[in-house]
């Protein structure tokens, strides 16, 4: 999909692997999705 961008978010000296989907609706809103941690209990 053209409007999906694989990127990195910079946090001081840390680079966070990220994926951003850009809507063409121009309503200037976004949802930030926050994962569980792999070290947290898993199925």
């Amino acid at each position: 999909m053209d409007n999906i961008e694989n990127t990195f978010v910079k946090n001081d000296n840390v680079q966070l692997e990220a994926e951003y989907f850009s809507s063409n609706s121009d309503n200037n809103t976004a949802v930030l999705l926050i994962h569980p941690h792999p070290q947290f209990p898993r199925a």
Partner: protein
Amino acid sequence: MHNNVVSGIYKALIRENISCLRFNFRAVGRSTGNHTEGSGEASDVRACVDFLLSIKKTKKVLLCGYSYGAAIGCSQVNYSDSIVGFCAISFPFDFMGVEYKKLSQSEKPKLFIQGNRDNIAMYGKFESHFNFFYEPKLSVIIDGADHFYGGYESKIADEVVKFYYSLFE
């Protein structure tokens, strides 16, 4: 980056043409850095909010976290006035300690999604935790779901999308 619950929401948001960002915490996947037991991970959430506001020129951000991501993510709800509220899926109140619950307190809109067979974010204690939070707030109980929501991904995604539209339409 490929958790079943988060991926289900991500795909639903794309179908609805809603901008969204997902990321790996530090030391996960191709993200650099080291795990920090929470403080660095909370700063990762703030960095992603800043990325949306500064780089992508987003004006309003809805946080949506699952499990550990709910505790860490929702604890940053008051970081910016541009954060309009949060969705918390299986917030592990008892597993993570009371600090994240207190930091997640807010007068902004809040949606809590909880499986009634979840024994990690324990369903039996959910109501008392939910009652702690100020209005406005909503809860959705997923009948039959444990902490991992296998088979319930689309139901969760539908609830998140519905909550998004309740805020932005």
